[in-house]
């Protein structure tokens, strides 16, 4: 009996994935995996016993929730923002998993390195903080408290109101999206630049080959740095969301 020879797809197929469906590329798979892993971890964590000391996966879930509550919500929104814990935990975990896929071996593509997901997340945050402001202060009251900060001499409002409008309603979601997207894209570009440099150094003349040691060392350092950037950008996104929601619900004036 003749067994057919095993044919392996070329190595580039590990990195360049073919689209599963029209438009559903590698980043779609990464996003679905990030959301799925978040759901799975917290679904498994919720099955633990709430009355005894947490163990195993429940301990892990409680650590994440306590981190968000103590370091994000209590610092920015105070005690009455604790109702926002599920939303902020989900945002943090989803953004972190999308970021960290940039250094996981067969993905090696941060899901937030293309503008689609950061833009959509920033739009969601924009809708939420505006809706919270309108709900707490009414539409007129919300516009008044955000566009006309109290305590200024009257003629100054001609200058301050357009600045406040642009700053509160246009720059905030735009900068949230750009901050996340550009940090991740820059890290990704640095990683593949050094990887390609190592590869082309190793294929060049013999006296240049030892320089590849330096580029590999830089690549290792950058991979470690990307872990820090992934966590920090997820933390900053969640914290800024909490700051915006808090300042809509309770304007500080």
């Amino acid at each position, binding site marked *: 009996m003749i067994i057919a020879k095993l044919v392996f797809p070329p190595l580039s197929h590990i990195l360049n994935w073919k689209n599963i469906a029209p438009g559903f590329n590698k980043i779609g798979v990464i996003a679905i995996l990030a959301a799925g892993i978040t759901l799975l971890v917290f679904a498994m964590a919720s099955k633990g016993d709430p009355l005894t000391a947490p163990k195993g996966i429940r301990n892990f879930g409680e650590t994440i929730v306590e981190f968000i509550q103590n370091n994000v919500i209590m610092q920015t929104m105070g005690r009455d923002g604790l109702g926002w814990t599920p939303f902020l935990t989900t945002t943090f975990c989803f953004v972190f998993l999308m970021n960290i896929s940039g250094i996981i071996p067969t993905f090696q593509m941060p899901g937030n390195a293309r503008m689609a997901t950061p833009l959509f997340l920033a739009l969601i945050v924009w809708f939420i903080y505006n809706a919270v402001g309108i709900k707490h202060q009414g539409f007129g009251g919300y516009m008044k408290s955000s566009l006309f900060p109290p305590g200024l001499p009257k003629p100054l409002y001609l200058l301050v109101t357009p600045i406040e409008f642009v700053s509160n309603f246009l720059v905030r979601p735009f*900068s949230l999206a750009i*901050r996340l997207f550009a940090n991740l894209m820059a890290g990704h570009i640095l990683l593949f630049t050094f990887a390609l440099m190592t590869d082309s150094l190793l294929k060049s003349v013999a006296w240049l080959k030892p320089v590849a040691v330096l580029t590999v060392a830089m690549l290792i350092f950058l991979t470690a740095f990307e872990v820090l950037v992934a966590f*920090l950008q997820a*933390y*900053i996104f969640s914290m800024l969301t909490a700051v915006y929601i808090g300042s809509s619900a309770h304007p500080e004036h």
Partner: protein
Amino acid sequence: MLSSILAAGVTGDVAGITYGLAAIGPGAGIGYIVGKAIEAMARQPEAAGMARTTMFLGIAFTEALALFGFVLVFLVKGN
């Protein structure tokens, strides 16, 4: 002749200068923020947690300005 020499030196990809100029301000700004945060943490160690959190918030805002410049490099080149 001088202008043609100057022009010959400047042709090529000047989009990189965009980011170089954009990184001056946030570089100085982030250095100042972290310096002041270290000073605050050294003066009053029990407020270190609050200072650290506010430092990260400030770094995120100023770094975003540098990153706007970085993204504009690709927008200009992509056109």
